[in-house]
């Protein structure tokens, strides 16, 4: 992945999480994975378009998703219901959008597509052999992995 794309995603993840959860946010070390299947249980996929093609995958376990959604809604959710899913989806949307905005300022023309959420019951996201940058984030509600795979348009 082009190095110029990295910081916008890293910063955006940190900023948005900090703002919506209002809690300590720590980032783990970045690394590369050769293929990018979501593994933790709840995944939100946001497509990228424009100068590049790719997608951002937000991967976390159910408990973390419920905890984050609860914080964002200011109420305790018992499970990942429609509201909870919409909340996590919106989180993914905001992080991706902020990164896309930053990239625009750097001169890169990205667009994003509406996000889709996949949970254990309908986890049909296929494994793709696309290398992904992993940005591990940790908040009191749990861990989440932001998984970015981008390739330049030919």
């Amino acid at each position: 992945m082009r190095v110029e794309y990295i910081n916008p995603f890293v910063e955006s993840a940190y900023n948005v999480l900090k703002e919506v959860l209002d809690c300590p946010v720590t980032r783990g070390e970045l690394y590369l994975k050769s293929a990018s299947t979501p593994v933790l249980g709840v995944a939100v996929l946001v497509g990228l378009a424009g100068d590049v093609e790719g997608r951002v995958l937000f991967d976390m376990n159910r408990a973390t998703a419920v905890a984050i959604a609860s914080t964002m809604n200011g109420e305790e959710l018992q499970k990942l219901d429609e509201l909870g899913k919409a909340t996590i989806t919106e989180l993914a949307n905001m992080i991706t959008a902020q990164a896309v905005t930053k990239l625009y300022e750097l001169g890169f023309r990205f667009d994003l597509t509406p996000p889709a959420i996949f949970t254990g019951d309908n986890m049909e996201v296929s494994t793709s052999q696309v290398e992904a940058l992993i940005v591990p984030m940790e908040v009191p509600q749990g861990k989440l992995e932001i998984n970015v795979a981008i390739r330049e348009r030919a």
Partner: protein
Amino acid sequence: MKLMGGMPNLNEKRPLGLRDDGTPYRVLVVDDSMFVIKQINQILTSESFSIVATAGDGEEGLEKYKEFFPNIDLVTMDVTMPKMDGLSALEKILEFDRNARVVMVSALGKEDLVKRALMTGAKNYIVKPLDRKKVLERIATSLKL
């Protein structure tokens, strides 16, 4: 982001959502996220705005506007939505009613997007994550335009 729906208004002035005659401003909220609709709902109703309708995409947004016309005072419009995106819906609503008051609400803050929206005729552009204060300020300003 702190949600403070239900908190008493510390301001002596009347709630932002009420007109001089005491009737509430009527708002159409267009966003594909149930969460965002809930957020905007909470922020606006806490200031006595009246959410008269919601829509999940640009096409539905346009339909609802036409349906409720002329009883919509303000539209909040997301940008990234399936079927018809917010900019297209903005254009079409203004075609239908050139006095429509539309405020864009989006996680995307790209300069070209903001410019296009404002030049097309949006009254304001709010970038998510939503901040109660920011949302109310921008909406209050838009109502005066």
